[in-house]
């Protein structure tokens, strides 16, 4: 089939949606489709810009395709008779983020008009899609709550799942993630102060600011755990991340209330590592089953430390839970083959 993957984005801002659009286009080609990426520039401030971009997308038609797969607002307004939406983002500023945006001020008339028109455009044009898939239950719930529309969940796979492998179970807990306060790496460092075994912690990722790096460094020094915590506050190459995953004892990922499950747990399971997370971590809880594929504990350093110690003392349990995680990903069909099959309606 001739397929257009349609995305929109702010120039020079490159995030998960952009990587996903690229990966989807590539995978569609691997499965024999003639797939092309369309990427529309977008600006979301001031309010009038949002409406101009809705209008621009609505003006464009895709004539040379059998199937169009839009991913985001406002790209999903492009005209085509056979649209299958894989929804990653609506314009959340007019939905769940509206109250947050105007916590300290009142919306102006332009803001209210934008909210009304974006909602109306979503309500009118989203139902044009033959089918709506959402990347997470949170995205689907939001679509239902604000627009009354149903979406089926279609989880995004890791971009290159073939690259991951399983090595021996080492002596360290690995946490690959951007360094910021909502990812709560500080909880993991605190947990190390409560460990009774020689288990180590490896934190790797780009700090969101100099303060974040300083905060973790000071915490490590203050708690006297520098001999057991390796801090890599930088971008690490994919190959290095895959190797650190493959040789870890387990993976820890303890963000606060995230929308989607993120890629950390998926990548851990592809390397057959168990995952330690917290009861308030959000989307990841659909993947981590306590005592089966890892540990789900209270966001308390003592409990996290105890989970580290238990796996350190029992590698067979780490191996069994990691293998169970791998089985879970298989059973949930979080694979590109499944994504391509469902989006193209081929089975």
């Amino acid at each position, binding site marked *: 089939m001739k397929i257009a993957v349609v995305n929109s984005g702010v120039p020079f801002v490159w995030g998960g949606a952009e990587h996903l659009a690229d990966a989807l286009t590539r995978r569609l080609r691997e499965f024999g489709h003639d797939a092309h990426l*369309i990427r529309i520039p977008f600006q979301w401030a001031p309010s009038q810009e949002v409406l101009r971009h809705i209008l621009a997308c609505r003006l464009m038609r895709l004539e040379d395709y059998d199937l169009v797969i839009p991913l985001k607002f406002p790209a999903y307004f492009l005209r085509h008779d056979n649209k299958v939406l894989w929804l990653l983002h609506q314009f959340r500023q007019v939905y769940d983020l509206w109250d947050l945006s105007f916590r300290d001020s009142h919306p102006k008339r332009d803001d209210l008009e934008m909210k009304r028109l974006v909602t109306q455009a979503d309500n009118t044009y989203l139902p044009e899609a033959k089918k709506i898939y959402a990347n997470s239950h949170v995205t689907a719930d939001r679509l239902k709550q604000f627009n009354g529309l149903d979406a089926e969940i279609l989880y995004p796979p890791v971009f290159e799942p073939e690259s991951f492998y399983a090595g021996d179970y080492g002596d360290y807990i690995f946490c690959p993630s951007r360094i910021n306060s909502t990812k709560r790496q500080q909880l993991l460092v605190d947990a190390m102060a409560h460990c009774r075994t020689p288990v180590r912690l490896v934190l790797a990722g780009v700090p969101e600011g100099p303060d974040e790096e300083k905060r973790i460094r000071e915490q490590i020094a203050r708690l006297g755990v520098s001999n057991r915590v390796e801090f890599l506050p930088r971008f690490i190459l994919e190959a290095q991340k895959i190797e650190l995953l493959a040789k870890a004892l387990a993976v820890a990922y303890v963000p606060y209330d995230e929308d989607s499950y993120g890629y950390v747990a998926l990548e851990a399971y592809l390397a057959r590592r168990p995952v330690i997370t917290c009861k308030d971590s959000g989307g990841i809880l659909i993947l981590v089953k306590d005592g089966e594929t890892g540990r789900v504990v209270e966001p308390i350093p003592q409990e996290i430390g105890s989970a580290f110690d238990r796996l350190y003392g029992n590698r067979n349990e780490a191996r069994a839970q990691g293998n169970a995680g791998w089985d879970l990903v298989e059973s949930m069909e979080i694979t590109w083959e499944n994504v391509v099959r469902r989006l193209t309606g081929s089975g």
Partner: protein
Amino acid sequence: MKPAMKILIAALSGPAVQGTIGEFVARLTEGLRASDHQVDVFQLPAAQSAEALLEHAYAARFLDVGAEADRLLTIGTACHVLQHPAKICVVPGCDSGLDLAIQAAESREHRYICAALATAFSRSRLVLVDSTSKVALGHLGVKAASLLEVPNWESEHLERGLK
């Protein structure tokens, strides 16, 4: 060449232009990045009819690419209608938009597209054409003071617009 510019590319994408404009954009992006420029690429749909081409021209007029880029390179019609203070229009001979405009001669779409292109070119820093696209623009009666005919617009001539 001024080092480490932010360069935005807006090019046509689709089955009809994949092997021509698509490959050129891939080579161009690679070359610019090798020269340490930061490059971001947008792909706009190639029109298959004069009506759609006109709609896409209107759409491009509404799209805002922001102020972060030092240069905007537009490749193919109607990407040239995008607005930027330092825009370089690249008009390859394989531009299907130009062919559609020529085929729609005497129509409303033809007149509007020619006017839109003339305006877009008048507001650009440089228009790079090859011999084929120069002939096509001649058919359309579109003139541009900044028009530069180059035998190979993939080469060093582009640098003139990047200075």
